[in-house]
């Protein structure tokens, strides 16, 4: 059987792929409504969003699960082709820097401001599997049986099989999440770097040092019970039917695979490009620095910079945010940890006039979730006017159609006032605590 098309391999709700697509749109000067889906699809989602949750839940689960790859086809997955698809999505030109590595929405917004690309270190391959979401041991056994097909075909990757029955309860009943991390630089990435970096331009390694307890299945295969979000790892591990962890590994969705960073460093040394590293612990960590840096950039050109935009997980529009001089404070999920981070940012910043809050809806009132009222309350407590963007709080956490409404809602924002030039790489790196030396100012 022939290889699967790379576009059919990666989950449409994968954080890396969606944030990458939003950035690719921003580098083309395009907004990113309804997560890059067509206007017709968005209209259908908005219409379906009016259905009662009892009906919509069924539809949501079925449609989401339809993305799962049949396990016997895992040998037809070529992750090198997926890397090529990711690299080819960016407009062809010489860039003053390229970001590579961990997924992070805050840094994706910073990249949009710099107008530089980011090459993800991971993608999510959804695999069809029916099972009880509350029996992770069964998912582990499934992965042990089927993963060799995928790993034998793709020797440059590590599999972090992730099972989060708390936040992904609806989906993991019908599919399982194979999160693939590159441990080598795929050929498509090296080609892109060679062709797209300006002479002497730096490569910026994004390294999230998050780890998680795992069950080691093989040298390139671990099983991760739970995921970053509302609960600590111990709470997942204490649940029934959960295998005992025997190792610690990079967190599946956000953490950096060490081999990938080493491969990138080798490439940079051999090709005369400085390597900068932005290192942090946990996906929420860079949001404050990014927001403060972007705000300072706006103010230096005379913008008021008093409107905060709070993207949520994959829900956001980097181009629209930057082109309307919105200060991005990205949140990794609508959970209490992210809410506290926003509270902290507002406490440490000069007051904002308005806070536009987006909230990704995963359809479950899961442990640790943060409600729309709580988000709005934090904004008010710091003197700002909150606005829920494209969200019907009465339907929370089931307002799935917010993915088709946030784009038009953000489009109502007034454009920025001042002409602008992309943020200098040196300015951006200074802002996130990685002062570069010896690179040109873009």
């Amino acid at each position: 059987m022939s290889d699967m098309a790379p576009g059919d391999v990666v989950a449409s709700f994968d954080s890396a792929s969606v944030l990458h697509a939003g950035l690719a749109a921003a580098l083309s000067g395009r907004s990113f409504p309804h997560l890059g889906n067509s206007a017709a699809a968005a209209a259908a989602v908005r219409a379906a969003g009016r259905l009662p949750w009892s009906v919509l839940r069924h539809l949501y689960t079925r449609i989401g699960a339809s993305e799962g790859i049949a396990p016997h086809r895992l040998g037809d997955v070529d992750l090198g082709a997926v890397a090529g698809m990711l690299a080819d999505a960016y407009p062809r030109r010489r860039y003053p820097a390229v970001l590579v590595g961990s997924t992070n929405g805050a840094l994706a917004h910073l990249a949009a401001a710099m107008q530089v690309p980011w090459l993800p270190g991971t993608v999510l391959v959804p695999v069809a599997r029916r099972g009880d979401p509350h029996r992770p041991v069964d998912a582990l056994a499934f992965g042990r049986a089927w993963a060799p097909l995928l790993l034998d075909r793709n020797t440059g990757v590590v599999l972090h099989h992730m099972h989060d029955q708390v936040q992904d309860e609806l989906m993991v009943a019908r599919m399982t999440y194979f999160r693939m991390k590159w441990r080598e630089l795929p050929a498509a990435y090296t080609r892109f770097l060679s062709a797209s970096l300006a002479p002497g331009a730096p490569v910026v390694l994004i390294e999230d040092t998050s780890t998680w307890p795992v069950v080691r299945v093989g040298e390139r295969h671990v099983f991760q019970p739970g995921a970053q979000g509302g609960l600590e790892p111990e709470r997942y591990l204490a649940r029934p039917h959960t295998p005992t962890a025997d190792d610690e590994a990079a967190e599946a969705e956000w953490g950096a695979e060490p081999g990938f960073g080493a491969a990138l460093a080798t490439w940079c040394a051999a090709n005369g490009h400085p390597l900068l590293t932005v290192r942090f612990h946990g996906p929420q960590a860079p949001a404050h620095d990014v927001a403060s840096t972007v705000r300072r950039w706006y103010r230096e050109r005379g913008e008021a910079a008093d409107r905060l935009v709070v993207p949520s997980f994959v829900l956001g529009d980097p181009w629209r945010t930057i082109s309307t001089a919105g200060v991005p404070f990205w949140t990794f999920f609508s959970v209490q940890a992210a809410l506290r981070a926003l509270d902290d940012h507002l406490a440490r910043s000069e007051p904002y006039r308005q806070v536009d809050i987006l909230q990704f809806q995963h359809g479950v009132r899961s442990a640790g979730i943060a409600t729309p009222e709580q988000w709005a309350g934090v904004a008010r407590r710091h003197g700002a006017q909150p606005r829920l963007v494209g969200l019907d709080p009465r339907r929370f956490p089931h307002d799935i159609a917010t993915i088709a409404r946030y784009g038009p809602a953000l489009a109502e924002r007034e454009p920025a006032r001042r002409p602008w030039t992309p943020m200098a790489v040196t300015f951006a790196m200074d802002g996130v605590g990685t002062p570069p030396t010896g690179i040109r100012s873009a």
Partner: protein
Amino acid sequence: MTRTATRVIVVPGAAVSRYALPAVAALRARGLDAELADAPGSPGVPTDLARYGGQLAARLADRPDGPDVDVLVGLSVGAQVAAVAAAHCERVRRVLLVSPTVDPEARTGPRLLGRWLRGGRLEPPRLGARQLPDWARAGPRRVAAVVRSAIEVHIEDHLDRLAGRLTVVHAERDVITSHAYAARLVQSDPARLVVVPGATHSWPYQDEARFADLVESIVERTTA
């Protein structure tokens, strides 16, 4: 010769110049020595953009004792003229290409026409009324000849020879010239891209103050 004012020359779009008069007036009001060049394709002016650019370069070089051009501005297809002129004249100190044409993705007549029609829906309502008399004066054959030349003259082929600093302006809502093309034109240091929020292809029409601000800032930024 004693320099008294910053010298700016603005090359307008295809066979149209009236829409650019207020922008030039705004520069003069700031004390700049601003001149509106003839529109490419207007009566008596070449429809061939490369030829017109060559003529402009020769004119600028023809006066050894005359002042340098501090900023040569090209609007739309005028950007193609300006790029050619600046590539052939060392006396142009800065080049400002606004909404430069033609995006490689639109280098056929039908594609360019399609983009022009789409872009027209976004433009200020009075723009057409401002441009129609100019087009009528030039006549459809000359306008069509300018469009044919615009498809054939590629700005990127001339940028390596620029002596002056390059700034490319992309109007955020411009659908004739893509953001990606504008960004691709500024790949060599110290060229830079400027995005004008909310603006359309005809910028700086009806936005003279921001235009004058930008020209002044370019001169200040690169005078040190």
